[in-house]
């Protein structure tokens, strides 16, 4: 391994461990991160689920992929809060004076948040199974689905990192990190099929990365059919490839942007 990469991995691990220790000391963060998606599963399954009809499949089976995707998207927003807090407390300034890799603080933050997302995902799997969701695919497909979900979660954390380093206070990070996720996650096929949406909105929803990941998960979990994801439409047919492309695109855009932000963030 080349020396630079080794330094990034080493420093990244040190910072990850620090963030995990924090989570251990304040476990409420993880608990509350799990409560929200839990509520969503129950609300959608029992309240909206009775009114929403999807063709050829029970709503709960349709729903879970959407909830998984939305949950990790929201879960990644904690990255911006964590970084804004470190910035405000002068920790980032301190880190910047150390002979450590520039990307390490961001890697440490996003990795810890990924683990947080993993815990929440596991809680969600349990809840889903309880309300009647089933995976109808093979083990390999299902596993690939969760890997894709976590890669997406990690990519979203980097957008969040960029936001956290750009805002001027923790309070702003708390709202700025989340607000944009409401339209992004709801103008999608996560909770309802896009077929009924007005054309303009539908087009956006179809190409939305949330939709791509959701559709890809439905496919990999065997929670879909030809009526929900018609094979004659490109984004549906190539959902898995599209989802992977989105993750790559987000990462290659926001990793360098965030690292650059980090360099200047504490100098204001």
């Amino acid at each position, binding site marked *: 391994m080349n020396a630079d990469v080794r*330094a990034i991995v*080493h*420093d990244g691990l*040190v910072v990850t*461990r*620090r963030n995990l*220790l*924090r989570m251990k*000391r*304040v476990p409420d963060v993880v608990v509350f991160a799990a409560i929200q998606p839990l509520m969503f599963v129950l609300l959608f399954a029992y309240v909206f689920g009775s009114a929403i009809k999807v063709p050829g499949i029970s709503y709960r089976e349709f729903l879970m992929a959407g909830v998984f995707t939305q949950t990790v998207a929201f879960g990644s927003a904690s990255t911006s809060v964590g970084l804004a807090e470190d910035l405000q*407390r*002068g*920790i980032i*300034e*301190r*880190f*910047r*004076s*150390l*002979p*450590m890799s520039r990307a*390490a603080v961001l890697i440490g933050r996003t990795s810890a948040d990924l683990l947080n997302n993993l815990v929440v995902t596991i809680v969600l799997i349990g809840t889903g199974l309880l309300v009647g969701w089933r995976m109808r695919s093979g083990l390999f497909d299902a596993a690939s689905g969760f890997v894709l979900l976590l890669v997406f979660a990690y990519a979203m954390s980097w957008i969040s990192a960029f936001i956290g380093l750009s805002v001027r206070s923790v309070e702003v990070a708390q709202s700025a990190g989340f607000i944009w996720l409401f339209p992004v996650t709801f103008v999608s096929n996560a909770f309802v099929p896009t077929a009924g949406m007005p054309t303009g909105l539908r087009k956006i929803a179809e190409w939305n990365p949330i939709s791509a990941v959701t559709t890809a998960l439905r496919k990999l979990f065997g929670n879909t059919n030809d009526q929900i994801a018609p094979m004659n439409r490109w984004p549906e047919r190539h959902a898995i490839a599209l989802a992977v492309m989105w993750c790559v695109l987000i990462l290659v855009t926001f990793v360098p942007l965030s690292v650059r932000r980090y360099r200047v963030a*504490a*100098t204001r």
Partner: protein
Amino acid sequence: MPAIVTEGVVKTFGKVRALDGLDLEVDEGTVLGLLGPNGAGKTTALRVLTTLLKPDSGRVSVAGIDALARPDEVRRVIGVSGQHAAIDEYLTGRENLVMFAELYQLPRHKARARADELLEQFALEEAADRPVRGYSGGMRRRLDLAGAIVSRPKVLFLDEPTTGLDPRSRNDLWSVIDDLVHLGTTVLLTTQYLEEADELAHQIVVVDHGKAIERGTSDQLKARVGGESLRVVLAQLNQLDAAVAILRRITTDPSNFVVDARLRSINLPVGGIDALTEAVSRFRAADIELLDIALQRPSLDDVFLALTGHTADHGAAQ
């Protein structure tokens, strides 16, 4: 060889010229005290020197390394403790130190050993395994300083290191810094207390509005300010002339007497504590009754008054 050099460093924030052509030179193994009021540019100077801030212009070198061209190399040889303690609240004191040591690229077992050593040195062993959230201000400050010397840096930067410490912790800290200097560390510290600069610094640079307005040893500076003075308040006004006559024999500078008949007070420059005992015994011999007598040390305000003709206008440095 000087360990720290800045030449004509300028840094502006919008309209504020935080640094306005700052020149510094610190010899290896010595302590430089940067003395100045709020807003003078002390913190900004430290942030430039510790590679956190790029100046608009000027030259900066630390431990012989060009800090603007090769900041990464500078970070390897410096230690920094900022004006506000920057440590992780949720981690214990020990965890914080081990983390810093590891980020200075010490292997894990050495990082642990170093943390133990520092916890002992800074009298933090008892609290070592409690989260920092529960630490007092002084304990945080000490932990922060311990973090700054984890790697036994060649050059150490301390921004108001003893602000918020009780007198005992302050003395402890001063002796830690002394020890480091004896081992060859170069220290640049900022302070608002002349006393601290006096105690620790070989050289003092007074900054105001981003510029060095005076530099020298603490003795040289005090000489310019007038050093210590004696303030005498008499019980009876009719003894004033007799008292002045006695004090003329004690003062270091008879031309600098300030006599206030209304307050029955006399202020005069003196050489030190001996002047006070001498004055007391002479007054007693001459049967002159005193209400009050005190030795006064020059304060930062006196330095400013003497050097700039204006007092340290706190916080207003536009």
